[in-house]
């Protein structure tokens, strides 16, 4: 299911990026591929959404970026999670779980 970020709820893209980077530093393309794999191809992050989101997170101090080399030995910018980024991930995850739990309760409501 190719998905545009507009179909995600606000903050979902950031949460997925933070979660993916918690497993280790990645560059932009690798990040897209990792999310795609992790979601069993259900979520495809568009580059037009990815790079502005990365800049927002850099600006917020959740990530840092360093130039490095890709597996193909290509010069790429590698993003890494900061401590603030981890805290932010926890906050977002908690908030998301409560939200989904609430939504699920609403969906399971049986009409009298």
């Amino acid at each position, binding site marked *: 299911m190719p998905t545009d970020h507009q179909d995600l709820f606000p903050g979902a893209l950031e949460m997925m990026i933070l979660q993916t980077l918690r497993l280790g530093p990645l560059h932009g*393309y690798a990040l897209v591929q990792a999310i795609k794999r992790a979601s069993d191809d259900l979520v495809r992050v568009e580059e037009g959404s990815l790079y502005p989101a990365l*800049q927002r997170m850099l600006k917020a101090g959740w990530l840092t970026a360093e130039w490095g080399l890709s597996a193909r030995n290509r010069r790429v*910018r590698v993003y890494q999670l900061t401590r603030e980024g981890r805290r932010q991930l926890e906050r977002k995850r908690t908030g998301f779980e409560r939200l989904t739990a609430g939504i699920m309760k609403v969906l399971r409501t049986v009409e009298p």
Partner: protein
Amino acid sequence: MTWRPRIFWRRAFDRDLTAEMRAHLEERVEDLVDAGMPRAEAVRRARAEFGNLMRHAEDSREVWTSRTLDRLGGALYHAVRGVRGNFSTFGTALAVLGLATGLFATVFVVADALVFRPARIQDIDRVVVISGLGETIDSGWSTPAWWGQARSVDPLVRWHGGQAQLTARDETRVEDVASVSRGFFEVIRTAPLHGRLLRDEDFQNIEPRAIVISERLWQRRFGGDPDTFGAPVVVGGLRGVVVGILPSTLTYPRDISVWVAAPPDPPRYSSADKAAEDLHDLEAPGGVQHVRRTGGAWLGRLAAGQSAGTVEAEMQALAKRLTETVTPKTGIRYAGSTPVRTLGDALARPVRAATMALFVATAVVLLLALANACTLIVGSVLERRHQFSVRVSLGATRGRLAAALALESLLTGALAGLAGAGVGVVIFQLAEPLLVPLSPLLGQPRVWIELVSVCVLTGAGLGLLAGSSALLVFSTWSDWQLLTHRGHDAGVRRGRRLRTGLVIAQVASAMLLITAAGVAARTFVALAQTPLGFEPTGVLAVRFSMRGSSAVSSAPVEVLLDELIARRLASAATIADRLPLADAGGMRYVGPSNTTPASVMTVGPRFFETLGIAFFGGRDFEQGDENAVIISRRLATALWGTSEAVGQRLEIGSASTREVVGVVDDIRSSLDERAMPWDGSQLYFPWSGPVRTNAAIALKCPQPCDAIMPAVMSEVERLGGDVLWSNTMTSVLGTTLAPARVRLILAGAYGLFGLMLAAAAIYGAVRDVVAERTREATVRMALGASPRAVQRLILVYGLAICFAGIVVGAAFAWPLLSLARSLAFGVTPGDPVAYLGAAAVLIASGVLASVGPAAQLARIDLRALLSE
């Protein structure tokens, strides 16, 4: 590299982000190739998946900056690149706009000081000038208390100005002194720089008289010494004491350095009978003795609900009542006051026509320069349409392209404003010696601030207008047309039509300016050829005053003149109260019922011989001719219908008649008779009595006048006189012609500027047509048309533009020149010679501008073009 926002980081940011995104794309391509896809297909697919790289970069950058600022920065970046990439276009536009802006700002500052705000006086439109009030037909007597009854002004004050001797710190020099009545400073509402203004009690004391001096005099004569207050001075024979210093921003009355409290007012009269018994002169008793009177006026601050018109009506009613009562008893008739004007209007009136004509001409030059810049910029937009297509295909939006185009022009306008400020400063500095005498305001530092501000604002305004013309062309292209070039031709044609219109506007402006130059030239010639009635060549004029308050009899002066003749320094010499062209003359009414106006001069022996004034009948004055009069031919004709007036008795004033002993040629006191309608109608009295404070001598020089000037001046000083002024009459004539000469030079310069821009515009338009129609011309020639016929087509195009501009320009020139009718002399605003001359000059320049591009067609390599 630190990953932080910083000033001027955009370039580095874009570079890094683009590199990062390209790496992303390449990684994707490699993955697809590894999956078995051909590389070309992989590249295409990767790009399609990625989308518009530039837009992603822009969205990313906007995280760090304000969207508006970022877009503005981007537009500015492209605008700077656009200007740099088309430097010849924008550089030329900048030069033309800069020159016109500097010129316009200079003229604006001058017009502001002379016409728009001629004096920095609070509520200047509530101050009225009441000229001629209180003056009588027969004498200079005035009745201040009588006019004080007026209720439409409160207060009503007066001042008389002139040159008087000021002794301070053991040094005596002639200064410009004004005697002002109580309430003067209340009317002009000024505050002292130091000390105080004149108070009511100052007008009660004859001596020591309270005086206020200008800041300039304080610096010049007292070295800015704070102890100046209370310092004893002698002004015009009166002991005085300095009580205050006025700021240099006070420029009314003009050139005055010393303000003295006028003598105490007589009691306020309630009836004309009482006033008639005590007719009062401002100078006596206890007034300042001026060596030369230069002017004066009655001023009033309008009472609530009053206007200049109501003041005029009230003053005329008062004059009528005074005349009805006083004239039967004294024979003195009171003239009604001349039109009452606001002070601003009165100050601006003498220079309004010339200044406004210059202002309008400069505005035309500015519009011409704007049209020229618009032509260049529109041409540049048309030439760059391929460049716009590329940018649109790379993701630039229509709005961004438009913003960059507008900014290009705005940037050019702003730079032109700055360049104009430089031009304005240079022009102003060069013209300062001519300008400052016109208004003291032009010599003040704030002028520079005004000049630069006007330049920058004008430049920005022109930039916006020029940008609008570019946007006008750009707006005719749709997004699709921008991207594909399809259907572009209609937009290009509209752009070319606009450009042709701008070229016609330039030719029209040039037509207007060249016609004005023609009228100015013919005016100058007419003025220079005006018969003067006397021979100015080889005549030296010297004006002097006797030192102190002593007057000498005329005998020593006559002896001096005889001595100068005996020493062969002069072949003829004379004395007079004033000289033609050099001095403004007094007017009197003479003849039956005293209704014929005439200029009055009092002249010594040999006056007519020295100035070469021809006799048409009768003789010169002789001994014992105290009650004789010599008149001019014009006056004789006006009085008796013939120039044979010798032996007639002439009524002068209400009480005396004199016998006409001679009739002489009419001499001119002014070259333009409209300034003095009675000019040429003269009345000469024989010199009698002592030489008072002010007189003039004229000498016919057998050798160059400059050579004998020092000797004459030392002889006058030996006699006890101070030379106030000396000059040759030829130079005086030159000075009289100076305004017309300045107008001619300015009009000529503006006309030349207009001609150059119009010729350049025609050349550009014809060159573009040649470039666009070369292929068509080639086909025509290949089909048998002669190169000459094709060239003729191009020439006809150039001349058609020229003719259209001439017709439009002539249509505007007539009404505009009619507004400046008062500046023309001996020529009408519709003068066919000026119009035909301007048209001929423009047609010639149009032909010259078209011949070059048309000739290019003859050099076409037909074979090479056809093979393309």
